[in-house]
C-alpha cells in the first residue's frame, strides 16, 4: 500500500479521535460532577453542527462566528435542560439519568429528522482554511490540520482548567464532597449547571468542527455516540486525561485498521473495549471504586 494512503487514514483517524476526545471529555466532566451518564451528548454534537448550518442558511452568519455562537447556544440549551429536567434525577439511581438523557437524545434527534430529513446538508469550509499543503509524503488539507490543532487546544485547555486553576479545584472538590464545598460558601448547584453547559459545549464545538468534513445530518450524533461510549469505557469513566488520550488513540487505531484490514475498522474499538473490560474493568485511566 502507498504511504499516502497510510498517512491519509492516520489523519482521518486523528480527526475522528479528536471528536471522540472532545465528546468523551465532556462526558467525563458531566459524570464527575453530576454522576449522570449523558446519553444526549451525541445530540449536542449534532446540535452544534446544525446550529452552525442554520446560522449560515437563515442568517448568513459564517464559520468563525458560528465557531463561538454554536457551542454557546448548545451550552445554553444544555443548561436549561439541566435546570428543568436533569436536576430532578440526581438523587435517583444512575440508570434514571441515563434513561432521561437517552430520551432527550431521541427527542432532539427526532425533531431534526422530522424537519430536515436524513439526507444531510452540506456546509462549506471557511475560505482561509481551504486548500492544503503537499508535505512530500502526503497531502495535508488545511481544514483537517485545523481540526486536529483546535481540538487539541480545547482538550488540553480544558484539562489545564480543571487540574491547575481555582475553578478547577472547586470542580474537583465538588466531585468528591459537594456538601462540604457548599459549606465553604461556593454555590455548587450553579457550578453543576455550568459544568453541564461546558461539557455539552465541547460536544457542540466538535459538531461545528465536523460540519465541513462530514455533512450536517440529524443522525450524526447517534453514529458517534456508540463509539464515544466505548471510548469512555476504555479510558475509565470520569477520568479527564483518560478521555482525551483514549479518544485520540482509538481514533488513530480505527484509522490504521482501515488501511490494514478495512473489514475490522467498525469493530476494532469495541474489540479493544471488551479486552479492557476483561483485564481492567475500571478502564485504563480509571480508579477502582
Amino acid at each position, binding site marked *: 500500500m502507498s504511504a499516502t494512503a497510510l498517512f491519509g487514514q492516520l489523519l482521518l483517524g486523528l480527526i475522528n479521535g479528536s471528536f471522540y476526545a472532545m465528546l468523551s471529555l465532556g462526558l467525563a466532566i458531566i459524570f464527575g460532577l453530576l454522576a449522570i451518564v449523558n446519553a444526549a451528548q451525541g445530540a449536542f454534537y449534532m446540535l452544534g453542527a446544525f446550529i452552525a448550518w442554520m446560522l449560515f442558511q437563515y442568517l448568513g452568519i459564517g464559520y468563525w462566528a458560528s465557531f463561538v455562537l454554536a457551542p454557546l447556544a448548545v451550552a445554553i440549551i444544555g443548561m436549561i435542560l439541566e435546570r428543568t429536567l436533569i436536576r430532578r434525577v440526581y438523587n435517583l439511581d444512575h440508570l434514571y439519568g441515563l434513561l432521561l438523557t437517552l430520551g432527550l437524545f431521541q427527542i432532539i434527534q427526532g425533531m431534526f429528522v422530522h424537519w430536515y430529513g436524513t439526507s444531510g446538508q452540506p456546509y462549506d469550509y471557511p475560505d482561509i482554511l481551504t486548500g492544503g499543503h503537499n508535505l512530500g509524503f502526503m497531502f495535508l488539507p488545511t481544514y483537517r490540520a485545523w481540526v486536529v490543532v483546535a481540538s487539541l487546544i480545547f482538550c488540553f485547555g480544558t484539562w489545564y482548567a480543571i487540574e491547575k486553576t481555582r475553578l478547577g*479545584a472547586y470542580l*474537583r*472538590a465538588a466531585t468528591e464532597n459537594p456538601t462540604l464545598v*457548599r*459549606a*465553604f*460558601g461556593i454555590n455548587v448547584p450553579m457550578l453543576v449547571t455550568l459544568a453541564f453547559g461546558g461539557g455539552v459545549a465541547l460536544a457542540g464545538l466538535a459538531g461545528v468542527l465536523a460540519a465541513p468534513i462530514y455533512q450536517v445530518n440529524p443522525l450524526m450524533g447517534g453514529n458517534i455516540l456508540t463509539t464515544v461510549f466505548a471510548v469512555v469505557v476504555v479510558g475509565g469513566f470520569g477520568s479527564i486525561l483518560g478521555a482525551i488520550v483514549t479518544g485520540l488513540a482509538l481514533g488513530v487505531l480505527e484509522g490504521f485498521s482501515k488501511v490494514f484490514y478495512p473489514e475490522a475498522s467498525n469493530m476494532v474499538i469495541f474489540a479493544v473495549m471488551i479486552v479492557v473490560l476483561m483485564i481492567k474493568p475500571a478502564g485504563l485511566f480509571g480508579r477502582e471504586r
Partner: protein
Amino acid sequence: MLEIAGLHGFYGESHVLHGVDLSVRAGEVVTIVGRNGAGKTTTLRAVMGILQKRSGSIRVMGTETIKLPPERVARLGVGYVPEERGIFASLNVTENLMLPPTLAPGGMTTEEIYRLFPNLKDRAKSQGSKLTGGEQQMLAIARVLRTGAKFLLLDEPTEGLAPVIVQQIGRVLETIKERNLTVLLVEQNFRFAARVSDRHYVMESGKIIDAIGRSEIAGKMERLEEYLGV
C-alpha cells in the same frame, strides 16, 4: 453571634433535634457536650444548613438562616470543620488549604498558618489522601482560619488523635481565642473542652438539658460525669 431557638431537625422521617435553644456571644468559646447520638453533630449541621429538614430559628450575626442554603450561611462569615475533617483526597495540601474562598478580611496569612502548623508546610505537595489523622485535622482547621471567618463550628477536633496532637490542637484553640474569634465546639473529650471553653451546654436526646459556666465546672463535675456516662 449565634442564637438558636426551638430548633427541630429531621433525618428523613426520624426526628433528631427536639427544640434546641442555645446562644453564643461574640468572642466566646462554647462547647456542646453529650453522649454519642445526643444530636451534637446534627446541631452543627443544622446551623451550617447542611441539615435541610429543620425548623425553628437560627440567627447568625443577626441574620435568620433557617431557610438559607449552606453557601449563604458560610458567606455570613462561618467556618465549618466537620467531624470527618473533609480533606479532599484528589487535592494536595496547598490546594486544600486554598480551596475555601475568602469570606471576610482579617483571615490568617499563609505564613501565619504555616507558623501555627509547621507540619503542613513540609507536606504542601502531598495529596490529601496521604495525610495522617492529626495532619488532616490541622489542615481542616487551618483551611477555615485562612478565610477570615469570624465564627467557627468545630466538630470533635480531638477525636481519635494521640495526646500530643490533642495538646497541639489545644494551643491552636488558644490562638483562635487570642484572635477574638467565636467558636462553637462539639467535644466528647471533656478535659480538653474544660481547658479551652468559656461555657458548656449539655445535650441529651436532641435537647439542651443543662448549661454550665466556666466557674461552675469544679462544683458540677460529678453531675457532668453522670450526664456523659463516664
